[in-house]
């Protein structure tokens, strides 16, 4: 069994709290093998998760963080995300559409919405095409908001990031008292770790990189699991032969799962969540993600295989 937790002086990374991935010795772990590293200015704390109470519920928080945060969006694509109709006597007429996995998000400091509708098309006189973007804003969607600003105009803010430059230098862990396990004067009993350079006793909630205070991560959600897999396109939308199931620790409730095309390519996607339990999720690369006559559309951006990354968020 590997030694995975170090509180003290790491031989490579200096003073701090370090937790490595399962099976990895924390003393020799590379940075991408750590699940917690107290040298960071911000960590993967999820401020809150949000599911709209109705499709008209477009306020994700009533108290702004002071910035637009990075969001992990999870949801099941409607079967007919795009409606493509071809009624033409000229077979080469057509539309190119992209198959991508929603939910796509438009985000403000307090509001959230579905990505805007795509333009419809109608080639009058020759053809009649409709290309309808069906809404993917559902009450079953889960949006997880990280305590990380991701807002143009604020990315060079040293107050938000501790430094204005783009290349990020991990902070010293020994410049001030940063770890408190016990009775915090403001937040009560618990375990608290502040960002480099900030005294844990006087740190604000946004300056904590770990805290047992419920208001730091309002609903105790966390990113639990990240897995990469290459999917093979199914022979039909209902065929389960190429389905992939990935497992993770029991989350207690159904987690939020975001499927990203590996490496971040968001086009050429179309992955569906087929089923979920508290400890596993099954996904499929379907034959098609559009309904209607797709003669000129279905082959344009439906690859035979697709490598994706699944991000599992344990909901609090």
């Amino acid at each position, binding site marked *: 069994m590997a030694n995975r937790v170090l509180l003290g002086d790491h031989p490579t990374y200096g003073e701090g709290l370090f937790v490595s991935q399962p099976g990895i010795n924390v003393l020799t772990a590379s940075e991408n093998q750590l699940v917690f590293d107290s040298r960071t200015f911000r960590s*993967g704390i999820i401020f809150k998760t949000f599911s709209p109470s109705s499709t008209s519920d477009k306020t994700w928080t009533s108290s702004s963080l002071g910035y637009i945060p990075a969001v992990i969006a999870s949801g099941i694509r409607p079967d007919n995300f795009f409606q493509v109709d071809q009624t033409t006597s000229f077979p080469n007429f057509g539309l*190119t*559409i992209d198959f991508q996995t929603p939910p796509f998000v438009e985000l403000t400091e307090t509001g959230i919405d579905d990505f805007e509708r795509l333009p419809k098309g*109608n080639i009058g006189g020759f053809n009649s095409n409709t290309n309808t973007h069906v809404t993917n804003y559902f009450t079953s969607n889960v949006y997880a908001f990280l305590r990380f600003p991701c807002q143009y105009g604020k*990315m060079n803010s040293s107050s938000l990031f501790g430094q204005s430059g783009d290349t990020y230098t991990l902070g010293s862990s020994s410049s001030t008292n940063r770890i408190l396990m016990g009775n915090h004067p403001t937040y009560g*009993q*618990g375990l608290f770790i502040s960002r480099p350079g900030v005294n844990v006793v006087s740190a604000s909630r946004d300056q904590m990189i770990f805290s047992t205070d419920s208001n730091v991560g309002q609903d105790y959600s966390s990113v639990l*699991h990240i897995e*990469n897999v290459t999917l093979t396109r199914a022979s039909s939308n209902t065929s389960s032969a190429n389905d992939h199931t990935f497992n993770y620790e029991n989350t207690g409730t159904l987690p939020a799962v975001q499927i990203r095309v590996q490496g*971040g390519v968001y086009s050429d996607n179309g992955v569906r969540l087929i089923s979920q339990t508290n400890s596993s999720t099954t996904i499929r690369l379907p034959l098609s993600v559009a309904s209607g006559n797709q003669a000129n559309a279905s082959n344009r951006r439906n690859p035979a295989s697709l490598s994706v990354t699944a991000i599992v968020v344990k909901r609090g």
Partner: protein
Amino acid sequence: MSRRIVLGKVNSSDHGIFVSKTGQDIVDSSGNLTSAVNQLFNSKASSAGNFTLKRKGQLVISGASTISGNSTTITHNLGFRPLVFAQWCFPNELDSNNVATKMRTPYSHRYDVSGHQTTGLYRYNFGLDVTANTNNVVFTNYGHQDGSVGQSPASVRKFRDTNKTGSIYVAYLIFATSA
């Protein structure tokens, strides 16, 4: 008051850092960890990797002169493909201080109305794609329109928005997490 933190040994099979939610003991009366739903942090469970920020920034990417898009590359040289978050906006969504009032997740749309004798009767593309490898992250603005715009159907033209085919404004985060 509940006992919410263990740093060390819980039982013969559980060693690490374990934190429960407010009001929940991290270890139950049988000496076992509380159920997963009551846990806030479990060093055994997480394989999610490290949300340690390696690079961050913002970009302005001009509209594209072709349908291939216009790309900007950020070199990170991490030696692994990192987890990247990118969000972006159109120019009409900046305030007077050039701060975004709205951001959106990566998305690109390519609308190609083809003719029966030629392709590209009218093309109207917009949006952002992001790709990452072990050395670089590439951000591509697909904002572009071409073709016989004047001949394009009125139902398409009325949705045309030149804010979408010009520069876009991107914020990004690159983490020390393999993805």
